[in-house]
């Protein structure tokens, strides 16, 4: 990069045209992203200035039309949903990857992968519908009302298992085959090789996938809107109905005005920064692995 000159920005060779095109596309994409961030920040600014960051954290409740702007219960709900979903999806996703690569019989591998991809591609609103019609009534039988933190956690977990599984598979497959031969030649069994060699070698790629899945869970709106009950309160139990930051924006944006509207943008900004942070952490993990 240090030797970049203006003249080298303009293509002369076919390779140059391709590099130029790719560079332009990359600039466009990141430019748009930057514009979106600036826009959200601009819309949030009035609230940040007049209400102040502190009150978003210290106000006990969320009555934006009556001057109470506490985001903490919804932040906590978002975190609880994402953390709960990860607790389930991370081990299951890694297990799915290991099973498909190392235990599934040959004929099963391709259909199994298809299944994982199908799940990855299922629109979240469909998962939400299923949760609403099947899962919520089941949970309601254990403890009403059913629409609750645990309902959100379960469906989110289902949604992000493929993310973890696909990233873990890529990480596991990038462990050189020679490691397997070496392990076998040392008389290590499959489990010993997996636990001691392959998983440690793939650790950072797997961790990256888990962070990415966490970011997805944190940003998911539709599922949580449909099945978590949408009551603004601290998530003090698995069966408590909660409202996530994302659903709050979707629910209230249509009619919000003034400070209310601006404070919705504040919660959007907070979400974006959190997700960026997670994706960034996932990216650094991956870069370290390739260093």
């Amino acid at each position: 990069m240090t030797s970049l000159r203006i003249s080298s920005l303009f293509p002369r060779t076919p390779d140059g045209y391709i590099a130029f095109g790719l560079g332009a596309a990359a600039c466009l994409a990141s430019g748009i992203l930057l514009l979106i961030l600036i826009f959200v920040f601009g819309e949030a600014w009035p609230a940040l200035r007049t209400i102040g960051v502190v009150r978003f954290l210290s106000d006990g409740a969320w009555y934006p039309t009556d001057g109470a702007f506490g985001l903490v219960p919804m932040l906590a709900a978002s975190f609880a949903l994402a953390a709960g979903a990860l607790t389930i999806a991370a081990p299951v996703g890694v297990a799915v990857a290991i099973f498909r690569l190392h235990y599934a019989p040959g004929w099963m591998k391709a259909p199994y992968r298809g299944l994982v991809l199908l799940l990855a591609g299922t629109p979240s609103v469909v998962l939400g519908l299923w949760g609403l019609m099947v899962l919520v009534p089941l949970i309601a039988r254990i403890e009403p009302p059913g629409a609750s933190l645990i309902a959100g956690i379960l469906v989110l977990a289902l949604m992000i298992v493929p993310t973890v599984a696909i990233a873990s598979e890529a990480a596991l497959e990038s462990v050189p085959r020679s490691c397997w031969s070496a392990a076998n030649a040392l008389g290590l069994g499959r489990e010993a090789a997996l636990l001691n060699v392959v998983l440690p070698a793939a650790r950072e790629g797997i961790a990256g996938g888990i962070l990415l899945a966490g970011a997805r869970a944190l940003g998911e709106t539709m599922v949580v809107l449909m099945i978590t009950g949408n009551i603004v309160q601290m998530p003090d139990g698995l069966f408590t109905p909660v409202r996530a930051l994302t659903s709050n924006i979707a629910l209230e944006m249509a009619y919000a005005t003034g400070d209310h509207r601006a404070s919705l943008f504040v919660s959007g900004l907070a979400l974006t920064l959190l997700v960026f942070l997670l994706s960034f952490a996932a990216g650094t993990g991956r870069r370290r692995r390739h260093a």
Partner: protein
Amino acid sequence: MTLGPKDEAAGEGAAGYTVGPMLAGPECCTPEPVIGVRGLAVSYAGVPALKHVDLDIYKGCVTALIGPSGCGKSTFLSSLNRLTDLVAGCRVAGRIEVDGVDIHGPDVDVQALRRKVGMIFQKPNPFPLSIHRNLDMPLREHGVRSRDERESRIRAALSDVGLWEEVADRLDEPALSLSGGQQQRLCIARALVLQPSILLMDEPCSALDPLSAETVEKMIVGLRGRYTVVVVTHNLAQARRIANFAAFFWVRDRAGALIEFDTCQRLFEAPAHDLTAAYVTGRSG
């Protein structure tokens, strides 16, 4: 295995290359077979790769396997520790005895067999773990509970391959940060640490620079007597330098076959077979 004053004495050996307690072994080999191969035939997905191999490998000797590419040397080697089991579609017929035990017998513990018959590959393949863990983990997996025992075995193995002085103060660094030659010696140490009696080496020097290759070669010479070594090499001069016995393989009727087996000197200087003569004088292959 303990490291006594011998360790220091050995340290004064050739520059950049230390020999550990392995020199304590007998001077050379005894003509007593430890591996007996009878009527070995190997095929991949029905295509024969090796046919009718009868061969004895003698205890404490270095036996070199030579022959042109594709004549089944690697196949022969990996049938000795049953690594062929892992290749889908690979069928092995015939009888292989190690220490008098049929390795295809019904109650053979393959993991124990592979512990006794170590293998070193052409390309150095250390695990992407620390140097120390590369050696420690196999020991632990093979049930060596005592930490002191593991540490002393690790030290002995690293000394055996002349790596101890080079890595003693960086045992926790990644094994992949070592040079190619060091990685290969680490892989040999990783095999030695399990105290095998037989070592299979598939072109152990061919991916290394000349200097590292020389170090590894000297090391193999140092293994003579204490270990039974079977080494595949394309380097005929190297085979002459390090081996007591040599086996010449050739492709015949589209499958690998053992053409001649003899002491290294006789195979190179007075081969019984025309094919061998042509190959060792560089007129074919």
